[in-house]
């Protein structure tokens, strides 16, 4: 019998689990799932060398290991820090972490155009989720936001640098999936940009995957731009025989019409491995050209997390939760995201609208 592998015990937000040596804190937290998983904007488990850049996944290490229980002096990037045996990590139970994360989200948003109403990524945007959870209701940034012209990278992909958060995921994708390096980062600091030097087409069978890895709406599918909102489309799993890729995709349909084809994603928004265990990257033919239902064998509806806006209107595979609230939270106190009364312009507790004998007018809300 093979010798039993020694597993590392790691405690994240008071939940103790055993993980294999060499696992990062983030991946350990992902095995627990739920609130204790730090958000990740730049880390992508399928891309080598990614992570460590966005700083949203910062966590506090309260004890380094059993051998050396000193806490780490700074917050660490959980995606690039490996667990040690007996490590104690604090994520949402640490005020320092929440404070730093709020700061990072604010930094990410100061130069983001916040054009969600016209952005194709809205509804499946990681930055949108993150700012709902950690952002402030107003901005303290009073200056002109950074902006760039839109650039076409070939006839199928559009790059809108204004929305980019410089996570480097697309650079790693292009580096690792395609033979020739064609795009990278130009300039530095807050004027750094993803570019192809001279506006060059990206031509590779797999370059379309940069759209899937982009956490924001900086890289968009030109065959889908402005065609529909993602929450009006229904995602279904489908496959076809493709001689280039695994051929397993998600079709985003409305009625009988296929609006968009993407690779299948897991609960962390990353591309899933195919059922044969191969990487799930899909080729440009499948992504951009096969837009008929007749091209595909449809397997059935995709499971969408019921918290996602995409699931609104079509709650596929959802059962009413049976656990009690306390069981779900496992002894932790619930996280209050924001006080709706503080945020809303309309919901002011102290304004008694029923006292009015006429329809409410905007001036009624100005009363302090």
């Amino acid at each position: 019998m093979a010798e039993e592998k020694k597993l590392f015990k790691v405690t994240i937000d008071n939940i103790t689990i055993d993980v294999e040596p060499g696992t990062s804190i983030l991946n350990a937290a992902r095995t627990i799932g739920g609130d204790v998983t730090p958000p990740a904007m730049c880390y992508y488990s399928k891309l080598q060398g990614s992570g460590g850049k966005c700083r949203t996944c910062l966590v506090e290490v309260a004890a380094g290991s059993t051998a050396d229980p000193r806490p780490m002096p700074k917050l660490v990037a959980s995606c690039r820090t490996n667990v040690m045996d007996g490590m104690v990590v604090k994520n949402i139970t640490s005020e320092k972490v929440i404070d730093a994360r709020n700061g990072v989200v604010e930094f990410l948003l100061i130069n983001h155009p916040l054009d969600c109403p016209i952005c194709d990524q809205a509804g499946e945007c990681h930055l949108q989720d993150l700012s709902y959870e950690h952002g402030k209701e107003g901005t303290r940034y009073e200056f002109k936001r950074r902006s760039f012209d839109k650039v076409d990278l070939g006839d199928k992909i559009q790059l809108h640098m204004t929305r980019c958060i410089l996570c480097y995921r697309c650079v790693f994708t292009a580096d690792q999936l395609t033979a020739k390096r064609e795009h990278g980062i130009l300039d530095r600091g807050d004027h750094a940009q993803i570019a192809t030097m001279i506006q060059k087409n990206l031509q590779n069978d797999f370059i379309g995957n940069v759209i899937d890895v982009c956490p924001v709406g900086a890289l968009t599918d030109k065959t889908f731009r402005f065609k529909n909102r993602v929450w009006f489309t229904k995602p279904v799993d489908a496959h076809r025989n493709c001689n280039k890729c695994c051929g397993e995709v998600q079709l985003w349909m409305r009625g009988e019409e296929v609006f968009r084809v993407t690779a299948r994603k897991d609960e962390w928004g990353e591309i899933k491995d195919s059922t044969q265990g191969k990487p799930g990257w899909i080729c440009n033919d499948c992504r951009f050209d096969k837009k008929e239902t007749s091209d595909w064998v449809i397997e059935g509806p995709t499971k969408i997390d019921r918290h996602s806006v995409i699931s609104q209107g079509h709650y596929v595979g959802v059962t009413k939760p049976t656990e009690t609230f306390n069981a779900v939270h496992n002894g932790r106190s619930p996280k209050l995201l924001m006080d709706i009364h503080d945020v809303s312009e309309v919901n002011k507790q102290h304004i008694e609208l029923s006292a009015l004998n006429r329809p409410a007018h905007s001036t009624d809300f100005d009363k302090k």
Partner: protein
Amino acid sequence: MGRKVLLEHAKIEGIRYYDTYRKHGGYTAVEKAFKMAPNDIVEEVKKSGLRGRGGAGFPTGMKWSFLAKPEGVPRYLVCNADESEPGTFKDRYLMEFLPHLLIEGLIVASYALGSNRTYIYIRGEYAWIVDILEQAIDEANANGWLGKNILGSGFDCQIYVQRGAGAYICGEETALIESLEGKRGNPRIKPPFPAVKGLWDCPTVVNNVETLAAVVPILNMGGEEYAKIGIGRSTGTKLISACGNINKPGVYEIDMTISVEEFLYSDEYCGGIANGKKLKACIPGGSSVPILPANLLLKTAKGETRMMTYESLSDGGFATGSMMGSGGFIVLDEDQCVVHHTLTLARFYRHESCGQCSPCREGTGWMEKILKNIEYGKGKTSDIDLLWDIQRKIEGNTICPLGDAAAWPVAAAIRHFRDEFEWHVQNPEESQRRNFGLAHYADPLAVNA
């Protein structure tokens, strides 16, 4: 007179050339080193208590002993000559006038660490120094101090000079390594540290020019003798590049036993404040370290005399102290405006941020814009608190120390000169016409009994 160890022969005519350098006792350290075992040299450096002269002040001997030594994998020594900290120009002086001292130190350190290929990564703006260094390397080669089988010891070593392209970030050791490999100079995410995985994924030691040059006197006089210079854990001599409103700006070698007051006012060193003005503030260790007002510079908060040592300069933490840093001593007189000065630094860090991690990329730009508003009379009182909040959220949350380096000067300026910022905000028109002046910054401190 302070003791000169590094710059002892700097003023000698022709010391830049091999013959003169050799005549004045050059390369004796190499001769001595090759009679020792490599590990004994590391021990000797440990005994000397030499601390990194690039800014962080990490014990050099300790850093050398951390170097991983796996079988069959080459090890590299890299000399960090990417001296780009505003206010620091000590390495430039050393390399320009005593190139052989650096080469000698590099040969000794290469032998101690087992590096057969040693690199000098020099900042691109020091173009003429590249020629000086390459000429020195050629001379050392011609005289058998470099190349194959040096002095019949069986040890091969070659030194290469690589020019950077003028980026401050490439002074950070992992960004330097990336740049040396021919990539974009982005700092790497640590761990792994360069001592395990550095240049071309091999164990690497990156040391500052002055640190490596200091290895020569350590070998010549012995580690214990070297450790006798200085106070406490600040051993040896330090090059200080003094600039700003002083009578005698320049590079000075100090043994770390003198007080800041002596350094600033004695005729041997800075010679006092220029034009008979009064001292307002000073940055004692290069632009990244916290600025100190006059009353905290000469005396610590406890009322003790502040000395030019690592410990004394950082006495009181960041609340009332600063850092030795890289030794860029920047002096501001009563006519200088701290807000304008902070804006200049913020603009520098915004320009030099690599843009890899979000707090530094976005935060440095934001701080510069707010400071610009305050400086040009468009600021609000809330901006000062906002600045404080931004620097707090950058510090410690970035990949490399550039984020900290950008946050500290702003934090210290607000901490010690808050009334000057408020005066700027409250008197937007007057602040365009005149400076806040000396105010009370030189007043004696109320020492807590």
